[in-house]
């Protein structure tokens, strides 16, 4: 995926804001769906095993919450996510900076990295699981890889697209290399780097779900989902989906909030 395409993806990750007026219309569809669902469940219009009543899902949610299971599963997932995200982001920053700042290194590593990122990350799971064993190590490795790729790509790109015009200003005023990197290249690359980190956050969350799914069991929110599927509990499945979606949404929202803060802090907007 090219950087431009990735940026486009980011644009789709931060969902378009619906217009402010007529907000109520957004609720028509969900409410209708829930009503229909309740009716179908009530009158057993469809296979009842598949169709649990909305109340059942709420009850399950309450039960998961009350027994602390939700918290245990979620905290395990989030802890993993945080670890993998941190490692991957840090590694990505270093690698991306090297690729961006050091042309020799770029020629040496760049093409291999480019090829590597074409392989669907999930295809690595069996290998990762053999190489890094069970448990959280393999999962964290997997998450780190998921987070690493966008950070590397965007950091490198951000650095390499530092406007030539600004670099010339640095030359005119006799900036040293260190000054040029820290005072021109990095500030200029910051938005791109942030894009990378933002994507890393989202990707590593998706990878968290994937890792719990495809790597050996343990605690985690995806395991709740699998448990629901295995024990055939649609209520649990739906509950898991809502939680996973909710966490994704929360991450998106906080990243966007942070981005706005960052923009304000950097004092620029155009």
């Amino acid at each position, binding site marked *: 995926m090219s950087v431009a395409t990735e940026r486009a993806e980011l644009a789709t990750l931060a969902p378009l804001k619906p217009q402010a007026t007529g907000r109520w219309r957004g609720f028509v569809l969900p409410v209708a769906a829930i009503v229909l669902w309740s009716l179908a469940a009530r009158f057993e219009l469809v296979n009842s095993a598949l169709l649990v009543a909305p109340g059942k899902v709420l009850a399950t949610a309450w039960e998961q919450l009350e027994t602390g299971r939700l918290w245990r599963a979620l905290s395990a997932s989030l802890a993993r996510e945080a670890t993998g995200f941190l490692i991957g982001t840090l590694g990505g920053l270093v690698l991306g900076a090297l690729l961006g700042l050091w042309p020799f290194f770029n020629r040496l590593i760049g093409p291999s990295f480019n090829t590597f990122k074409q392989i669907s990350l999930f295809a690595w799971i069996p290998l990762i699981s053999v190489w890094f064993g069970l448990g959280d190590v393999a999962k964290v490795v997997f998450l780190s890889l998921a987070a690493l790729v966008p950070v590397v790509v965007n950091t490198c790109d951000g650095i390499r697209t530092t406007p030539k015009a*600004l670099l010339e200003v640095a030359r*005119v*005023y*006799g*900036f040293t290399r260190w*000054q040029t990197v820290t005072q021109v290249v990095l500030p*200029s690359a910051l938005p791109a780097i942030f894009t990378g980190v933002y994507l890393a956050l989202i990707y590593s969350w998706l990878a968290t779900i994937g890792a719990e799914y495809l790597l050996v069991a343990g605690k985690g929110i995806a395991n709740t989902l699998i448990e629901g599927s295995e024990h055939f509990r649609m209520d649990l499945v739906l509950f898991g989906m809502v939680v996973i979606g909710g966490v994704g949404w929360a991450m998106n929202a906080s990243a966007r909030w942070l981005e706005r803060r960052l923009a304000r802090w950097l004092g620029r907007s155009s």
Partner: protein
Amino acid sequence: MNAVAAAENELRIRALGKRYASTQAAGGELQVLDNIDLHVPAGRFVSIVGASGCGKSTLLRLVLGLEDQYEGRITLGGQPIAGTGPERGIVFQDHRLFPWLNVEQNIAVGLRNAPLTPAEKRERVAEHVALVGLQGFEQSFPHQISGGMAQRVAIARGLVNRPRVLLLDEPFGALDALTRARLQNELQRIWQAERITMLLVTHDVEEAVFLANQVVVMQPHPGRIRRIVDVDLPHPRHRSDPRFIALRDDVLADFLEPGVLGAEQPPAPDPSSWRLAW
């Protein structure tokens, strides 16, 4: 600058030539500048006019030291120039302020590596904020100020470390006519106050004549000096002064003569820039 320094600060350009590698040009090279000779005594104001592509910016870049491969000699006070240096400042056409720095900080960029104490730097910056009339906007970021104000910040940045030569590459090109007139007056005032050597590139003949002691008219393919016109009108000048208008029309006539101004040409298509900017 004091009078003693005047002689040693003169800028001399001799037999200057510059070629760029170009896949479109015959022979794979484009002769952008050819045999340029120019002598600018210290404290002079020289305007350079010429059609698009005749190498005006390239000439400034060479004097500034941003390009290192050329033929001929460029000396400042007898010393050949080598790379960029604090004695030569520039104001770019597109202001080139750092978007992440505020007005004050952007001006301070000009003093980044000057041998001054932080307090001295602060003082100098404050002085120059005042010089370009931006008091009250010290904390504003480039996107928060208008184009004319940004251009004034760029001028302040170019001046703040007191270069012996200030190069100005179409500094008012992007501004509307009124702001432009205002900044021209301001530049004139600064020049009169500071007596820095100034080299101003412009498309606008009136502007060139209005500001300069000398107008250098260039012609393209390859870029050469066609003519040098002395402007010995006293300051302050008036745009409706008949002598001013005569001089302006003289240069303009030269300029509008077929052959000097290359036929309007479509820019080389550059689909890559279009693709993303679209």
